[in-house]
């Protein structure tokens, strides 16, 4: 007797879930949030992969690596005075311009697959402003040039000799690299082929920054 009472209940349950299932069909996926929430923007920054150092960018340029996409966020006038090789100029004011259809003009232009976009300005404050807005609007793979052009000059163009006392072999390697880079960017007559420079930048540059597997999985 209890047996078919149980079956009746199971039939009832099956019916309930069939109805739920049919309702599910009509529930669409919610459109992806237009903006990245503030908490997540801070989390992305805090994970430490918002910056590219001048060494890494110099290496990418010297290798002629197509993955790099330099964006100068300063005004047009400053851009025409000086800019890094193959950089394009998107003044901060124009960064989030929209076309007629309401899409962000630069979001897709900067986002051909597998590109690394590095914003730079004189320091890294304006670049950080651009980075924050762009991250909020779901731009992809965007970074800040650490220290901006001022730092570029101080590290790449006029590298400082590490003092003998405190320097580790690592510092010397980096210094060698920077001296060669300085010649490369300084356009010295003796065209030092960059390939002969053994890359001493310890983090392999080409691998996209987010190679450390986020803590996840079990």
């Amino acid at each position, binding site marked *: 007797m209890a047996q078919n009472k149980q079956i009746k209940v199971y039939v009832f349950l099956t019916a309930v879930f069939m109805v739920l299932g049919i309702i599910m069909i009509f529930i669409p996926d919610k459109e992806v949030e237009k903006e990245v929430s503030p908490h997540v923007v801070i989390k992305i920054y805090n994970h430490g992969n918002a910056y590219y150092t001048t060494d890494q960018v110099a290496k990418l340029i010297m290798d002629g690596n197509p993955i790099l996409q330099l964006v100068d966020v300063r005004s047009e006038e400053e851009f025409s005075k000086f800019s890094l090789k193959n950089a394009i100029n998107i003044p901060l004011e124009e960064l989030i311009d929209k076309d007629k259809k309401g899409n962000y003009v630069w979001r897709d232009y900067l986002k051909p697959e597998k590109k690394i976009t590095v914003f730079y300005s*004189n320091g890294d404050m304006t670049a950080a402003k651009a980075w924050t807005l762009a991250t909020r609007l779901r731009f992809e793979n965007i970074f800040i040039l650490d220290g901006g052009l001022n730092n570029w*000059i101080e590290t790449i163009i006029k590298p400082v000799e590490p003092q003998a006392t405190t320097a580790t072999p690592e510092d010397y390697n980096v210094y060698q690299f920077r001296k060669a880079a300085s010649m490369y960017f300084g356009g010295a007559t003796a065209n030092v082929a960059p390939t002969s420079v053994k890359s001493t930048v310890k983090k392999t540059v080409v691998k996209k920054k987010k190679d450390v597997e986020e803590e996840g999985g079990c």
Partner: protein
Amino acid sequence: MEERKDYAPFEMKHFYGVVVFLLIILIGMLSYNSNAPHYVKNPSESLVHIIDSAGLLHATQMAEILYLEDSLYQIVDLRKPKFFLNNHIEGSINIPIGRILDKEFLHVLNQEEKITILIGSRSSESVIAYMMLADEGYANIRVVAFSVDFVMSNIVEKYAPLSGRYDEERTVYDYARVISETGGSTISSETVKSNAKKIAPVKKKKKAEEEEGGC
């Protein structure tokens, strides 16, 4: 033949119990108003606000505040605790940037009595925190274009607020000239001012990087 089962049958009262339980949760969820941080300024407002560098405090103003020990201001240091411990501006509060939006610090940052000055290991760090707070309508937030180290060396130790890196965004060098001096370079300024406006429609793009989480 009565099948030997070692588990209890599913009775209707179980079903009703579950439904009631779900209703309670439903009521709870409906009455719960989300007060997670969300944007008050839309992107263009945020851009306009940050372009004319509203809320930017100059080194001289900072020096004045420190010397006068002006209690109207409170300094928030965004660096990691280990940096804060080995040196920090006297009287400053340490809120690492990763936790700036956490609920614990809401009363510290979003209040009327004191004006908060955000400062970090570099100006980019403080401006990002500043934008996030300003965009959420936090009141009385200021930001600076220099770092804690600058304050320690150029204001606290000796009074020289306008020497050194007081505005990280200032062009410290005449780039073109400096480079040409180091070797007669060709100034690379092929500007690719692209006006390519043919933009593919925005695809639904999943965030590529793996988030923290898992089992």
